[in-house]
């Protein structure tokens, strides 16, 4: 089972690959909407990819108020079996 830190690192790596941003430019406490400049549909697309990668379901309401990678990792980690 992944640790929270592993989950966080994988999120940052996936985000880097999907949005073609160098991994070194992403940090755990970045506001991902501001950093990535994404809209709601792109956010849903990222959510889909993260769910598939981690094999979890992350209800959308869990994302209310979540804007940084570290908190997102916590939410995903909590849902992992």
């Amino acid at each position: 089972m992944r640790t929270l830190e592993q989950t966080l690192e994988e999120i940052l790596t996936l985000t880097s690959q999907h949005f073609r941003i160098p991994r070194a430019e992403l940090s755990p406490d970045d506001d991902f909407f501001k950093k990535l400049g994404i809209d709601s549909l792109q956010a849903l697309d990222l959510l889909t990819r993260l769910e598939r990668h981690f094999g979890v379901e992350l209800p959308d309401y869990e994302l209310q108020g979540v804007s940084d990678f570290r908190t997102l990792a916590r939410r995903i980690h909590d849902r992992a079996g």
Partner: protein
Amino acid sequence: MTAYQGQTLSWELRAGVLEVWLHRPPCNEIGSQTLEELERLADTVAEQAENWVGIVIASRLPAGFSAGADLRELYQRMQPLPVEERQRGVRDFLERIHRALLLLDTAPVPVLAAVHGVCFGGGFELALVADVMVADVTARFCFPELRLGLIPGFGGIPRLKREVGNGLVRDLLLTGRSLNATRAHQLGLVSQLVAEGRAFEAARRTAEHLGRFDRTTVASAKAFLKPVPYAELRGEIELFCELFARPAVEEGLRRFVENTSPLPYLP
């Protein structure tokens, strides 16, 4: 007419399969123009489909299949109207779209939905008239209506109940959460899950395959396998109209229209 180029959707009959393409930017929101063209499609299906092999409905837009009802149009049109006229207008819209979707639901040939990206609200309800749901791995399904103080009004609740267990129906409706295609496939809502960008081709090949079988048998089997929940569909219209009369709905629509959140589609 086996070819039509509309403002919001188009279709063409190719080798016995009617290919229906949704193409109203940004994400096939279903407003008055789309309704008119869906009605035209439904009438064409009712008149001609028995000569076809199948129907495939897909979207040309990268954002997805459909984000649902055009809430901005609804909000803007209701503003100058007194309450009674708003009610009449909404009921009229519902009656018309129910008629169109029912004709698609009961078409004498298989209907396949080829879904990618966002498939929300009324868009999800359109996909649910299909006999076979083919989705690529980017698809997400959602009924977000509760945050507007409403329920799905295009027949989504009775049709979703045909597909999956009631517990999941309650979860999706009461939470308004979206379901990814992989999970939807595991739960039986999506019957064929394909790679990104491949839903239409897979649906098209499936429709062609279905053309090998005796059409009368296919039509009879379809009607037997997929009963139409007429009473529940009527009940949904009545409940929607009752809820729409509440001031909370106008407030919910206003919030949606004025929303600057990066995640307006989320509950």
